[in-house]
């Protein structure tokens, strides 16, 4: 029996920039990008669920994010997570990887004993691949990154095949260990209809607060209790719940600061268009030979 905690993140869909999200000045309108479950984190969750199916244990999924991240926590339940936590507080906003890993590691310490921490190798918005190793450092546990396959788990050790530059290696790590996975590691399972039906009503604290807004007959506390009873409450952990050092969270706790952001604008260049004919191409080749580009 092994317990896993999976680190997941909701990210803007940066891979699918269509005309709809482009602004007139040629830049991306980030606010218009749909929010999705970071793919490599889904792969990590899939691996955690596979470990549970093979060896028994529980799967916890956690995320540090704004209230709307409860969307992906629901998806974690659809995929087989047993318990999910949304770690959310205004004071966490603007966090770089150091501040994020601080908050995540403290939340993990609060959640309890674990054998595995799984996470995707990197998120498609920051693209840093840093949160995994930095979380492992703060928990003082070993890490295995670029994991491609969990070969087996035996007597408190896990054997993992991982990608390295120029090949692969097989390592054996003592538990507990933090593992970051690459997309080749697994195909995330489709959500089971049964679990979708069971959990689509799952709500976080913010979701419930919205329900009680302006409705004097509903009380948040009562609702929380009801949802908890039905296993439909997405637990939310705030700064107070975790008793964090405010100087280590959010922008304050982030040594890296953004000084400037420039959008990449597609601008016209001064290119020569060549006719797709024998003559056109012939002249091009002549030119390239004259310039000693082709010999």
């Amino acid at each position, binding site marked *: 029996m092994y317990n896993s905690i999976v680190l997941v993140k909701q990210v803007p869909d940066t891979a699918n920039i269509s005309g709809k999200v482009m602004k007139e000045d040629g830049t991306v309108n*980030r606010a218009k990008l749909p929010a999705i479950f970071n793919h490599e984190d889904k792969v990590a969750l899939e691996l955690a669920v596979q470990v549970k199916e093979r060896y028994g244990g529980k799967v916890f999924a956690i995320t540090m994010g704004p209230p709307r991240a409860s969307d992906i926590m629901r998806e974690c339940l659809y995929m087989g997570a047993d318990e999910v936590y949304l770690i959310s507080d205004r004071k966490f906003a603007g966090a770089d*990887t150091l501040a994020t890993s601080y908050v995540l590691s403290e939340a993990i310490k609060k959640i309890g004993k674990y054998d595995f921490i799984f996470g995707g190798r990197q998120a498609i918005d920051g693209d840093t691949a840093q949160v995994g190793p930095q979380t492992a450092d703060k928990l003082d546990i070993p890490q*295995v990154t670029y994991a491609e396959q969990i070969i087996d788990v035996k007597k408190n050790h896990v054997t993992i095949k991982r990608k390295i530059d*120029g090949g692969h290696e097989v390592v054996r790590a003592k538990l507990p*260990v933090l593992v970051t996975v690459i997309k080749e590691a697994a195909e995330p399972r489709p959500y089971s209809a049964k679990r979708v039906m069971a959990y689509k009503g799952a709500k976080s604290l913010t979701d419930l607060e919205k329900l009680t807004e302006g409705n004097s007959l509903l009380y948040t506390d009562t609702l929380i209790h009801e949802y908890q009873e039905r296993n439909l409450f997405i637990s939310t952990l705030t700064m107070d719940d975790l008793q964090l050092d405010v100087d280590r969270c959010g922008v304050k706790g982030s040594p*890296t600061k953004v*000084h400037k952001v420039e959008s990449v604008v597609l*601008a*016209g260049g001064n290119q020569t268009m060549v006719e*797709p004919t024998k003559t056109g191409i012939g002249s091009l080749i002549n030119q390239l030979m004259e310039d000693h580009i082709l010999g």
Partner: protein
Amino acid sequence: MQNLSNEVWVFIEQRNGKPADVSFELLCKGRKLAEQLGGPLKAVVIGDNVKDIAEKTFVYGATEALLIQHKDLKHYRNAPYSRILNGLISQHSPRIVLFGATVIGRDLAPRVASNTKSGLTADCTELRIDTITYLGKECKDILLQIRPAFGGNIIATIITPDNPVQMATVREGVMELSPLDNANKVNITELPFTPEPADALVEIIEQFHQENKVNLKAAPIIVAGGYGLGTIDNFRLIHELAHVLGAEVAGSRAAVDAGFVPHERQVGQTGVTVRPKLYIAVGISGAIQHRAGMQEANKIIAINSDPDAPIFQIAHYGIVGDAVDIIPKFIDAYKHKLK
């Protein structure tokens, strides 16, 4: 912050006793940064029997090499390597520490940054020292860490104004390799290493290496095919053209994902960065991630049936048409001119 150091350090990566190119590229960049700070450029070399690698660093501009050798350090493992760097950085607080953005670099650098509570910027495409104003405060001679983000749709300039140690990782091929005509004097400081039980928490059972037979970086002419070619059968046009021109074959990420060409031939942000004399992009739309890997080619020819493809924005010559039609014409015209 009191008494900031002026030292620039570069972690010299080695695999199986072979130094990684990216580390020497970073030394070349590092020496320019060190010059601006008026301080030394130090290479940190960790491994087993790697004194020769330490000696090589002076050809690329190191003024001192810190050498840590032990049989337990032969193959990279996170625990001992990060422990060594954590100790050295805590002790000396170098102003700048650079790592290659390789699998090893991405496994090692974040752990060290977390332990030393430093800021770390990954995949920098540019590094510059400048004096700027941030939130009304002057930051003298700080490192501007420039990188794409948001899937490559924005370029961000990151700074770490409040921490004494500034760390960054850079991918291979981004910085230029420029050995010195007169290498610096060899100046190696060997440091001791004692293994600890925590080192053994992750053991390497075995390693498999695939020799990379392709050297795209050295090819003067590259013919690259993209997803626009449609089928692996059409991709043979790329091979044919490359053969006739004496060029290397490459592909975009989409072409690799579709199985038209192997990953070692991928050009782009997550592949190889190339600067050939001539780059011919066929059926490649020219997404930012691809452009990042080839936009500094001396001459770029783009062939695409979509006249709005972004690749035309950076090409010197553009041909709108179907590759199946254009490539044979190109080959014929070339063979004809050679006669």
